[in-house]
């Protein structure tokens, strides 16, 4: 198989993840994390980047790993949190905030669903020495939920709701994730797409096009829609 790495290699990293550890990762490595990670998606990005609000956490204290996640969680009557499953949401929608986000947060690892384009990696990740880890499945919500050992904080819960709040998790053996981008800005998904694309013409061969066409933004099936 074309996108098969030599062999799937498993790596365990501690947050904040060091520059050396990041440099040692290869596309397709399986990663587990120990330490502290925090969530943030469009609700947090809009507030911090578009509206200029201060981050409610000290970046130095929450690790350098930003997870595009909303947990399946509930606030208990005593004010404590019950975190069930944990999975990511599709990250491509958040690329537009990343340039400023890296400046504000100093984060080096973004975890999410499905990655971003290699163009986004080269523009925003590579200059910041950052990489992208994708969740697996999707999604291994129960396995990731097991890895969350403690909710250190949940910020902006009232204003943004459970799904969009900024959650700070202490994690142990938190994974699995796959290394989707490297320090050169390569993408594991795009490598897979290129392999799959070789087969596409043959698949459509002999199938006549529908009578009524549609306006579309791309007709090239080798393209992605993100």
């Amino acid at each position: 198989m074309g996108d098969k790495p030599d062999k799937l290699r498993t790596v365990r990293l501690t947050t904040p993840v060091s520059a050396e550890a990041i440099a040692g990762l290869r596309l397709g490595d399986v990663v587990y994390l120990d330490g502290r990670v925090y969530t943030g998606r469009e609700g947090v990005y809009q507030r911090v980047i578009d509206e200029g609000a201060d981050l409610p956490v000290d970046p130095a204290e929450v690790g350098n790993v930003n997870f595009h996640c909303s947990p399946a969680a509930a606030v208990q009557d005593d004010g404590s949190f019950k975190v069930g499953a944990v999975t990511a949401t599709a990250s491509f929608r958040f690329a537009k905030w990343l340039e400023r986000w890296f400046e504000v947060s100093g984060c080096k690892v973004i975890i999410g669903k499905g990655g971003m384009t290699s163009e986004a990696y080269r523009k925003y990740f590579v200059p910041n020495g950052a990489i992208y880890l994708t969740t697996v499945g999707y999604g291994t919500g129960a396995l990731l939920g097991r890895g969350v050992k403690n909710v250190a904080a949940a910020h902006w819960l009232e204003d943004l709701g459970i799904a969009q709040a900024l959650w700070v998790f202490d994690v142990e053996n938190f994974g699995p994730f796959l290394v989707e981008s490297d320090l050169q800005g390569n993408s594991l998904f795009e490598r897979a797409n290129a392999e799959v694309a070789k087969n596409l013409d043959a698949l459509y061969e002999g199938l006549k096009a529908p009578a009524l066409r549609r306006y579309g933004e791309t007709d090239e099936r080798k393209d992605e829609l993100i």
Partner: protein
Amino acid sequence: MIPTQTLQGVAEQLMAKAAIEIPDDYLTGIKAMAEQEEGDLSAFVLRAMLENYEAAKEDRRAMCADTGIPRWYVKYGNEAGIEGGPVALEATLRRATAKATHDVPLRPNRVHPLWRTDHNNNVGINAPEIEYSFEPEADWIELTTVHKGGLFGTDYRMLFPGDGIDGIKRFTLDTLIAFGKRGLACQPAIVGIGLGGSKDICMTLGKQAACLRTVGNRNPDPRVAELELELKDLGNKIGMGAMGFVGSSMVVDCHIEVGYTHTGGMPMSVHAFCLSSRRATARVHADGRIEYRHDPQWFTPYMRRETVEWETSRTSSAQSA
């Protein structure tokens, strides 16, 4: 009379079961795909998912944190009576949805489309959806909840009779390829296809085909059944597996439901029920018995009827009298 208190308890149980327990038919299908998958990364993903289903059951936690947008399907026996009537039933299902969102917990995904208001309970305007069907001569009521993701993997297109099977194949491929890349559709999926009907019913049928039929189940029309298998095979020949990695695991099964449509058209919808294909059903009998199961048995002969009249023992005895 079936008491609403019984229904509330059943509905809460169903919400938890759907979120936590992967249905047996889907699990069997994924295990078979994992054994056949030759792509390293795709096979790794399937193994991780199998482990995840076990973890969810062991810990009694949701299998995926995107617990979808919970909805309800109610099959109402023609002879069934519910305390308080349909209005009380709807209140019960809304109450159970809110309570289970807190208790399981589920992610409160439901927000106002413009103001993004989140009541943190998956209840709001037109949410959860409640769809109904009826069953002749039955005195029970069946509740099914489905927790399907809501962002990627679905599309609709107006095709025409001249587009034929080619048109159906192309649109199936288009949808699977578009949403299969990077695994946005969270495949391997149960692919549901709605063919015909009016536009809205075309979407409804396709979604029900994906969510309310089990892996291995075939449409009773042998030619439709053949097309189901052909489209399943086609999807698995794209060369794409789990997460869009090279492989063969795209379609666990394909289900087609048809509806009579405009003589000039052949509308089509495609829906992907994901690696967390969450559904749970219970039949609540008039005498208080409750039976839980994974198979919604939604598409009964009565649901797929083609004739004007439907013969029941009551109508047939009236005719013979």
